[in-house]
């Protein structure tokens, strides 16, 4: 299975807001052309606005859908405009993986990799509607280039590979430099957990003792 590589994150973080806004308009058009069912599914939901906050990008996005329409746009200023029905926060790669159906949204939420606030019904509807469609963001971005789609895709793949390697090297160096910063184990919590476990085992043992005593009594006829 193909994967949208870090190119998306690197590119998006470098693009100025006005250019990104224009690209988002083109992306909307491409999505309507390439995924009409996805757009129709969003359009049939109850009207809502969701703000998406990639934690590692200077940009914020709004998804507006329902009441027969669906639109993605770049937010000009944080906090500007009407309050959204819900917000999603997480790093861009996690959000792209989520969009592409590559990772389980519930698992990410349960492990706190993404955070949501606002209407859970709206978030659930967005998650389920996106999950109905097979999307590859790199393909969608390439589709914006029209007749130049294939060369754009080849260049993107090369850049992606280079960025992935560079990121891996930087991550390894960072890990070595900051070994001492690893979070300390929460010994207090571990002790509490072990204490609770011992208590539960003691209770279970006591019950087994009672059961055994009863069984022995029944076998010997003792009262």
């Amino acid at each position, binding site marked *: 299975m193909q994967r949208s590589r870090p190119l998306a994150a690197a590119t998006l973080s470098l693009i100025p807001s006005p250019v990104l806004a224009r690209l988002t308009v083109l992306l909307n058009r491409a999505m309507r052309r390439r995924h009409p069912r996805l757009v129709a599914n969003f359009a049939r939901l109850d009207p809502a606005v969701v703000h998406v906050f990639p934690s590692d990008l200077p940009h914020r996005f709004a998804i507006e859908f329902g009441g027969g329409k669906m639109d993605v746009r770049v937010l000009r200023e944080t906090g500007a405009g009407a309050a959204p029905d819900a917000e999603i926060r997480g790093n861009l790669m996690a959000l792209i993986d989520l969009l592409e159906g590559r*990772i*389980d949204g*519930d698992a990410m939420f*349960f492990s706190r990799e993404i955070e949501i*606030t606002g209407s*859970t019904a709206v978030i*659930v509807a967005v998650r*389920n509607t996106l999950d*109905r469609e097979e999307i590859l963001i790199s393909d969608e971005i390439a589709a914006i280039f029209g007749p130049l789609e294939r060369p754009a895709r080849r260049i993107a793949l090369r850049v992606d590979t280079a960025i992935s390697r560079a990121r891996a090297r930087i991550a390894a160096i960072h890990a070595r430099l900051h070994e001492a910063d690893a979070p300390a184990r929460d010994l207090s919590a571990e002790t509490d957990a072990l204490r609770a476990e011992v208590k539960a085992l003691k209770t279970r043992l006591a019950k087994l003792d009672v059961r055994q005593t009863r069984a022995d009594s029944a076998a010997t006829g003792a009262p």
Partner: protein
Amino acid sequence: MSLELVCPAGTPAALRAAVDAGADTVYCGFRDCTNARNYPGLNFDPDEMAEGVAYAHRFGRKVLAAVNTFPRAGDARPWHDAIDNAARANVDAVILADIGVLDYAATKHPELRRHLSVQASASNELSIAYYRDRFDIRRVVLPRVLSVEQVAALVRRIGIETEVFAFGSVGPMSEGRCFLSSYITGLSPTSEGACAPASHVSYKEDGPETLSRLGEVTLNRFSHGEPAAYPTPCKGRYVTHGRTSYLFEEPIALNAIDILADLQAAGVTALKIEGRQRSRAYVTEVVGSFRQAIDALDRGQGGAVENTLASVAEGQRQTHGAYTKGWR
């Protein structure tokens, strides 16, 4: 005989993912209150159901339609339509719980195979025999309350196929009869098809903790970094006798992947993966793991497949549930 792998699909994409990952059978529901996973944006319209069936049949796999909620008084039409649409989509069987819906299906579509949903909560020989004899059900989905020995005893006596849960959420042991959620939301899980409906769920930051709430009731609080869970009332933390604990059920996933040989020896026909409300990534991962485990079992190498499903398990924890519990 190889265990049949029955897998969930909340969307057409998840159905294709399940088939591609090795499901023998996929179960799904329509986009309304007639199935027990009625969440926004989820499920199939009649055309999507027919397309999904065609896709599965192309690969020699089966599709089951869950119509497993209970009709509201005087309003059985959605359930009857669901049965008619399932038959029209050429599904391989319908999964039903309510005796009125069972009767409708048996009368109007006698050729359509009928399975008894776990929502019927039939867990003993007499109960299952009633559904078998009255409605000619061919398979029963057993509630998650039985030990492997009890499953084996039932299989010997009931004379129809059994399907048991192998992975997914652990229920409160009263499937089809639980009203905890409706006490808080006013919406019945058994008629509306959603326990703890998303419209009533909220998460709120409270200093270093996150509160998960259903309606106006806080069901749990998590410190940052602690795995969170969807707030169903049965998995809330409550204070009783001065002690805070998971009173009914803990957020933990059933995982029977390493006792498949025991379930096969018990005479089980099919293994059910729970999770139509989960993503297609979950479907791909869980179905792929169980496909490998069943194939290994068929080659006489049971237990050879490593269990790697903790990351998609609820609460990131796993249990054999009642299969190996001694409390019964």
